[in-house]
């Protein structure tokens, strides 16, 4: 595929703005640009080029996308239509409060829905993604202890945690102590006991965990932390497993984030936009970022006068359009529909697990939640998780999340979501078994996969060794 730059030719582009006179005499010449180096292409070519690029991509609409921890579920088209309504897409954030009542109401209602689902008391929609939510939450934890006058410098994170957890904590200057998992996948509670010291500000736990397991001692962990005066933070990336079945606040968590772009069906866009609302219990709500959306009588207001707030974490009010899509999703599903989502997500995962474990190694053998982890132990002829992942692409499936969580060697983390049909699950099982057969009979084929796509295996090593990060003529 050529880049757009390769198509450039002088004079091909006819721009669409009403520009006639470009003369500018009231800006100093020294500030003005000489040449504007952008490709010159025609709409005709722009359309062909990006249509062609789209054909090199794989999305949820293309096929099953069992990327563990990412909840790649169906993205309803209604979400997109509503988000594109001019009254929402065209709304300027500086519009008078009186002229943004519709938008503010959506934000207020969505926050309420998230409270209902999680049991938290308040939400901010400002964080633009999960990691941003984590960072916002850690800022609040820091602020909380500053406010209570306690000096606590440590945050506990299980070894199965997503990389964003330690990275978010590090920005705020906390020391990180890693909590080991026990062989059954739950937190090693004895080790945890040993790590809990007066310096522990909080523990971050992904619940259900990145192994796809619900920690059976969750209440005990919460109580250990609370007795120590520590806060308990839930990375809610895996909320899709428990909606309507158990509430995060009831598990003992004090604050959490949610990934709307996972659980609430907003498309991931090939790398965002996401949205990572942070929810807190009552006592932490005063630390939430400003502005918050409050309802006063029948009016919705943006409130910035909150002295204990950590401050603002986004240029405006977060990824409003993403929130609007989540609002649409919840509106369409209602309470039973939302519970059904989690029930079927868990059912789909367990079904897949039971089928696949008959021939693949299942490192931790428990009823899983919305996802589960296999690995490449016992796969013959040196075929690795990466090989299997690449070969799945040939079979028309996206690969699972691979080599994560780090505590399982050669991990394949498989999350089907509730929006896969039985025949699509069975198709995946067939492909996984066919690959196992090929590993036996045609290992070279698997090692050189993908073979049937427009691209063969892409060399990441060379890219990193001699980085070429932009096009040059």
């Amino acid at each position: 595929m050529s880049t757009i730059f390769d198509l450039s030719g002088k004079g091909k582009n006819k721009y669409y703005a009403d520009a006639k006179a470009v003369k500018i005499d009231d800006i100093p010449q020294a500030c003005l640009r000489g040449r504007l180096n952008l490709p010159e292409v025609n709409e005709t070519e722009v359309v062909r080029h990006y249509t062609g690029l789209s054909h090199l991509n794989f999305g949820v609409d293309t096929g099953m996308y069992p990327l563990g921890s990412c909840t790649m579920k169906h993205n309803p088209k209604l979400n997109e239509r509503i988000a594109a309504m001019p009254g929402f897409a065209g709304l300027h954030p500086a519009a008078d409060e009186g002229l943004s009542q519709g938008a503010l109401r959506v934000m207020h209602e969505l926050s309420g829905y998230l409270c209902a689902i999680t049991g938290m008391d308040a939400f901010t929609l400002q964080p633009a993604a999960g990691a941003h939510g984590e960072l916002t939450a850690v800022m609040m934890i820091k602020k909380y202890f500053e406010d209570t006058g306690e000096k606590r410098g440590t945050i506990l994170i299980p070894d199965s945690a997503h990389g964003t957890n330690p990275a978010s904590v590090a920005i705020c200057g906390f020391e990180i102590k890693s909590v080991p998992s026990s062989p059954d996948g739950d937190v090693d509670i004895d080790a945890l006991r040993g790590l809990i010291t007066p310096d522990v500000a909080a523990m971050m736990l992904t619940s259900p965990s990145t192994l796809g397991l619900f920690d059976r001692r969750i209440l005990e962990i919460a109580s250990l932390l609370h007795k120590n005066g520590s806060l308990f933070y839930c990375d809610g990336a895996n909320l899709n497993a428990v909606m309507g079945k158990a509430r995060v606040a009831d598990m003992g968590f004090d604050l959490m984030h949610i990934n709307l772009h996972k659980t609430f069906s907003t498309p991931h866009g090939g790398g965002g936009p996401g949205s990572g609302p942070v929810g807190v219990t009552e006592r932490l709500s005063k630390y939430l970022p400003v502005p918050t959306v409050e309802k006063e009588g029948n009016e919705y207001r943006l409130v910035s006068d909150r002295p204990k707030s950590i401050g603002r974490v986004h240029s405006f009010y977060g990824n409003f359009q993403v929130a609007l899509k989540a609002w649409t999703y919840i509106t369409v599903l209602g309470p039973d529909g939302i519970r059904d989502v989690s029930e079927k997500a868990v059912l789909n995962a367990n079904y897949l697990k039971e089928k696949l474990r008959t021939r693949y190694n299942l490192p931790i053998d428990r009823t899983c939640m919305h996802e589960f982890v296999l690995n490449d132990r016992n796969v013959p002829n040196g075929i690795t998780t990466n090989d299997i992942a690449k070969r799945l692409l040939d079979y028309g499936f996206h690969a699972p999340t691979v080599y994560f969580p780090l505590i399982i060697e050669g991990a394949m983390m498989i999350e089907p979501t509730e929006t896969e049909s039985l025949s699509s699950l069975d198709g995946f099982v067939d492909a996984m078994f066919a690959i196992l057969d090929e590993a036996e009979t045609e290992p070279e084929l698997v090692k050189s996969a993908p073979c049937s796509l427009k691209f063969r295996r892409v060399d990441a090593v060379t890219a990193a060794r001699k980085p070429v990060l932009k096009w040059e003529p």
Partner: protein
Amino acid sequence: MSYIPLTDEDARKMLAAVGKSTVDELFSDIPGQIRLSERLSLPEPLSQLQTERRANQLASLNASGQVFAGGGVYDHYVPAAVDYLSSRSEFLTAYTPYQPEVSQGTLTAIFEFQTMMCSLTSMDVSNASMYDGATALAESALMARAHTGKSRFAVSGTLNINYRHVLETYASAAGLELVFTHCEDGITSPADIEDIIDSNTAAIIVQNPNFFGSIEDLSALSASAKKHGVLMITVVAEAVSLGILKGPGECGADIVCGEAQSFGNYPAFGGPLLGFVAATKEFTRKMPGRLVGRTSDADGRESYVLTLQTREQHIRREHATSNICSNEGHLALRAVMYLSMAGPGLAETAALNHNLAVYLKESLIKAGLVEVFKAPFFNEFVLRTEDSSSFIRRLSEKGYVPGIELRDFEGLENCVLFCATEKLTKEDIDRFVHEAGRVTGRVK
């Protein structure tokens, strides 16, 4: 409505296959006392049609009139091709391109985005996007600290007020020290900046065009920074300005960050936005966020891949250059489509913005508003009203988004920040000014 394609029969079969007799058994690891027995307290479901009706009602409560406000989000024209192409679900419903063999569409587009942003900012390297302009600035400051080992920043007081607040939030969490200049005449004084720089200073931070719309003398500010051996971080919040203004790199910036929503993305009540960070090549391995690099596949075909990932959280965890994971990839895709449609015509659009803003300013002054700053500006400027609250209120009543009240600036009481883009015509401006004149009393 439900998006679950299982039949009841399927569910029964599957439950049997996993050896359970009820769905609830699948949740038995959740301690009994916290297992939910009641229904979630959510509204009863609506059909798609009902939902759309409700959304339409809510949308109709929002402003539908013309926009004369900027301040970090700009109401530019989005060509139809951008909407159509970016909505193709191969782009929209893909995750971050972890499997490059089925993600060359996204990867190539990000590579193009990086190239265009480098070209526009005159930098060597650009990342694949950040959350928004404000956090892009905060991350740039963290990068500057990591690079210099110093944590003090000399920040121009002409910085976008929301960016300032976000930077303060990050600073207080991450231990950065921020010192702001005053900005009486709406422009950054190199002398003021130099006054603040000390031996622990990592960088100066200056926005161009600044929050008041004025065009800063970046070269002079860069000279000040260089004199003291500190970096210059330049913030660009209105990316269309780059159509006629020099890339900050040409003026000596080391890091250029900001907001590129203007390129093909809608105001959307302020989000999602399109943060970006670009820098000189020294910073390549310190950049936050995704970078796409060129390589080849096993058959030698040119291809693209996420690269230098050892900077990132999923590899380096607490030692990563940033915690960012999902960013604003789809907005970057739209930006690259927009810039492909615009091409060098971006200069014309930028010029048109400027000329319309000049016309708006002159007209509003004739209608009785008062000039505040004399510096050259791009497409925004500040004027003083008699009573900014009532000015905003009365024009809002006409459906306009009439500008931004400058509440937090000493000496700018009753001042309003105005903006004009190519979406407005002179006739639109005349109508708006006419209404403004009714507020000032010039028009009866």
